């Protein structure tokens, strides 16, 4: 083999190695967590995207609550401990406190909810999100329920 043949082979191999061992796992990793919801036993969910967690309430919670008429949310910059009360929702049925699923700092709040609190009922996993926060202790995610564990948990409450 000539030197030039060898170089082209080397670059193909490098590219193959790169794709197999770097890109694919990275894509797999991001896809695994992207859109994955984790749940607390107080019916909040958190969706991890990079280093930010988006927080909302589950469908079970929004149904139990009824039509939301007011959302009391924290300030951006507020530091939260896991399980700390960070706000409250008021619905036609009752007032209900909100508890932080993780430890971190509030980076964004859903300002749409001030004018349109009903989004929490209409689209609780999408446009009805409540806050975004930084994730200070990623290990706390391990203690939260995944979708199937949460579904089992909800079923146990209904029995």
């Amino acid at each position, binding site marked *: 083999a000539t030197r030039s043949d060898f170089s082209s082979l080397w670059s193909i191999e490098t590219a193959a190695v790169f794709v197999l061992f770097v890109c694919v796992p990275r894509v797999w990793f991001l896809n695994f967590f992207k859109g994955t919801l984790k749940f607390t036993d107080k019916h909040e969910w958190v969706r991890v995207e990079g280093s930010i967690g988006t927080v909302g309430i589950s469908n079970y919670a929004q149904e139990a609550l009824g039509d939301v008429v007011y959302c009391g949310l924290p300030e951006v910059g507020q530091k939260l401990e896991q399980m700390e009360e960070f706000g409250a929702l008021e619905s036609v049925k009752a*007032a209900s406190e909100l508890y932080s699923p993780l430890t971190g700092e509030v980076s964004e709040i859903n300002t749409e909810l001030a004018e349109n609190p009903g989004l929490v009922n209409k689209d609780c996993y999408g446009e009805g999100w409540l806050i975004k926060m930084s994730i200070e202790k990623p290990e706390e995610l391990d203690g939260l329920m995944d979708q199937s564990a949460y579904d089992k948990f909800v079923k146990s409450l209904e029995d």
Partner: protein
Amino acid sequence: MFLRPGLWTGLLPVRTHLSGFFSAGIHSKLTKDGSLIFQSKSTDIHQNLALEDWIETNVDLTNRRLFLLWRSHAAVVIGRHQNPWAECDLGAMWRAGVPLARRRSGGGTVYHDMGNLNLTFFSCRKLYDRQRNLKVVTEALRRARPELDVRATERLDIVLNGKYKISGSASRLSRKASYHHCTLLHSADGSALQSVLRPSTPGIHSNATPSVVSSVTNLTDHAPSLTWEELTQALVQQFNTEFGLSSPLSLLDPSDESLFPGIGCMASELRSWDWTFGKTPKFTIETELSLSDDLTLEHTTAQLHIELKNGLISSIVITVQDQWLQQTLINELCDVLTGERFCPHRVAAAVSTLIKSEQDETQRRLHKLSNTVISVMG
């Protein structure tokens, strides 16, 4: 509040606490006497609201319903997300010695006095059923006075003769427990009610939960012979009938810390300024002030714009017409007020130094402007 660990979660009393050995505690009443219906001895609004919190946090309500009856001396009670400056006349309340309380449940503003009976239905979330709770009240009234037309509405009010409200409801859901409480107007002071349930402050813009104003009436206006004794007995009996129970009525003293450990702390939190006023959702005030110099009678108007967060003045802008007072001095006044509680006493104290440092006409007008701004606070 809900995060405070329950002292016990089963039927066994707390091993380390004396209340487990003496029989006057609620837990013993639950287990020994099988009592599920209680009446509070206290007539203090904050003490009774703290009792509700304490029961919700500390009593295991799994498959259980509890019923609490209580009354309080004159007080105005606002819902969790309401704005007191929009709902009640704080100045009139201050002068009449009527305290303000913010409850943890949602809903609107009510006036309590000894002519009003409060009913709290506690249960686990699974058994939460407000319509059924109100049926206890309507059926009890129907049995006691069949001639009265009482009905629960979709809004969970109870109306008499189709148009007068005699009861309003509010509720709270926490992780496992819930409570639904309602008022019941037996013989409340109607004129006192009207004089305090109106706004303190003009020009409020807010998305706090507003109250729905209704015409109210007392039960005794339509059934003058209905005594407290008879009403209480009817409610106790109907609660038992509705839920298939046979519970006696037991008295509770919520000021007894040995029976309700931690209740004093809960009551203090409910009495604090930070809870009562500081939990007001952010709002703005946009209004026009009328100013006149007390000596020269020179008159002008001013635009007032205040932004409030957590009950504190986060920003204030005053624009006075006709150069009635120097703008630099007005701006100094605004700087002094920024960050202060939206409270007449605090604000008066904060501006006094500034006023004293001026003289003659400037001092007079600055004083006038300050007092006019203070009057907006109720």
